[in-house]
């Protein structure tokens, strides 16, 4: 297995009194695509969001246990959450471009990091848009509002926006669930292309998608990590009965 990037040990998460994650221990390798699958409410998105501490925004969330990224505990008191989120970017389920122009959307991240030089910003934006495979579609209208793009384009723009900050890990929370098959395949291609540079963790409801693009797959059920292994193994020869039942569609 490749170098370990994310590592959790006996992690628990409570929403108020309700336990959402129960004793999660997982080791996610660098520069691979790791997919989280499982039925709704199984905690996979919650777990994803705790990897860049987006759960901090929700009232009543309590986390026990440790999450290490590059062997540093991100729930340590001395951790700067803002910098952590630069390191661990996130793409959301619903595309959420800002009410700004296409250019400004992508330039926002670098800009808040203090890059003011216009040429440099232009380069970053172009690279990010190219990496997100949307450059050719928008290069002539960078000044237009991002909200005028189609759903699939908006989602790729959001990916570009995340890439522009130059993170090491990209978390994706069902990035293609609201898109049509054509846009979905574009996003999938894009994600596969991204693993050269980034560690990608993706939550998906679509098992075919997980099978198509991921290197590793983790199956969550009722807040527990049931099985985590190479995607091929999970989909062809799962160890646990629950995994098999879910994958074959017996429940879920």
């Amino acid at each position: 297995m490749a170098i370990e990037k994310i590592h959790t040990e006996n992690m628990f998460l409570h929403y108020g009194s309700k336990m959402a994650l129960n004793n999660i221990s997982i080791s996610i390798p660098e520069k691979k695509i790791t997919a989280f699958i499982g039925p709704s409410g199984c905690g996979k998105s919650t777990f994803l969001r705790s990897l860049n501490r987006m759960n901090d925004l929700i009232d009543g969330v309590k986390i026990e246990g440790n999450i290490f990224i590059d062997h540093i505990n991100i729930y340590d008191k001395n951790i700067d959450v803002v910098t952590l989120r630069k390191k661990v970017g996130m793409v959301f389920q619903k595309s959420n471009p800002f009410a700004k122009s296409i250019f400004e959307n992508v330039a926002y991240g670098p800009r808040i990091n203090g890059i003011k030089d216009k040429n440099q910003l232009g380069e970053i934006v172009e690279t990010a848009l190219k990496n997100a495979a949307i450059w050719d579609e928008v290069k002539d209208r960078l000044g237009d509002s991002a909200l005028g793009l189609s759903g699939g384009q908006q989602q790729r723009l959001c990916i570009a926006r995340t890439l522009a900050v130059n993170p090491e890990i990209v978390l994706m929370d069902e990035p293609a669930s609201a898109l049509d098959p054509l846009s979905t395949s574009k996003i999938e291609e894009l994600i596969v292309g991204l693993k050269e540079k980034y560690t990608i963790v993706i939550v998906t409801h679509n098992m075919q998608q997980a099978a198509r693009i991921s290197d590793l797959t983790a199956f969550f059920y009722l807040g527990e990590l049931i099985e985590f292994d190479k995607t091929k193994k999970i989909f062809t020869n799962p160890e646990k009965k629950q995994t098999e039942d879910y994958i074959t569609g017996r429940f879920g």
Partner: protein
Amino acid sequence: MTKKTKKEKRPEPSNSGLIDITRKKFRWSDYLAEKVIKGTAFLSITIIVLIFVFVFRESVPIFSSAKPVEKTETSAGAQPEQETYGEVTDKQVDPEVQETYGEVTDQPAAPEVQETYGEVTDNSEESGSTDESYTVSAGSGHDDNQTALKSLLTKDWVPVSEKPRYGILALIVGTFKITFISILFAAPLAILAALYTASFASRRVKEIIKPTIELLAGFPSVVIGFFALMVLASFLQDVFHYDTRLNSFVGGIAMGIAAIPIIFTITEDALTAVPKSFYEASLALGASKWQTAFFVILPAATPGIFAAVLLGIGRVFGETMIALMATGNAAQMGLNPFESVRTLAATIGAEMAEVVFGDTHYNVLFLIGSLLFIFTFVINAIAEFYVKGKLMKRIQGK
């Protein structure tokens, strides 16, 4: 009865059991509710239109002077005769006697007695003549109105004098000046307070702040005016050391206090309406809270904030009581914020109750009312069309 038989008959051909959707039903309650709502809407619009028509109609006489007397002297401009009233014009008047009323002209008036209305009555007649002379001027409307019309765009507002001048320019400038000052004071405060409440405050703090400030919106303006008059004016004078105690600065601040709750509430609503996904996206990019608030939330809420500020302007523009109490009420044109001003609304408020019905002064006050109406209408129209049209398009790219 026929209906019932129909109902029973209908389903038969379609082989019973199925719900018949082919027969349109007339729903009385729906119909009535619709009509009542529609009627109410139109009634309120009609009332507003009628008010405007009334206000404007009362101001029309000023413009409707059909110019029956084509005076060559008048066109020449500087002739003294132009200011005389009633039958006086027919007589050859001594150039010195410029601004006397009615019978007063019969007496050789001293040149000095020009603008001192009170003294004239003392000199010439009993105090009862005041009304008489007014009646005369009101009766011989055209000349009066012409002079009023001519003086309309000057800066002298001297409606009660021997030679009344109705220059509303100073009033307009004063109104705009005070509006500008108060919005300059209120908008940043209200917007920042709203930004704090919407993006930074914890839920409990928010639950206290918002209703508290909204409660201020219902604060009687006379109380704010009183506060400005008694407390604020002295305090600000102590701090800034200007000469006039009551001036547009004090008035502007006081009116700003009245406008803050409105701007705050609507801005806060606009900021809260910004999708939470924007907030999350920005934080996920490694932006701090304040960066998110300033560069994402605030710009996204611009149309709402713009509307909020315009509503605040509307509030200040028509504010009467505070203007009356705290601005000094001197019609001056200057741009110095520490000078007293007189606003359009305050002028109506102060003078309408004492004006003679049908008099030129009365008409001019209604003209001012129309102006206020039109300005407010324009402001609201800008809010409506600019915000909903252009600004939304620019921001949402539709």
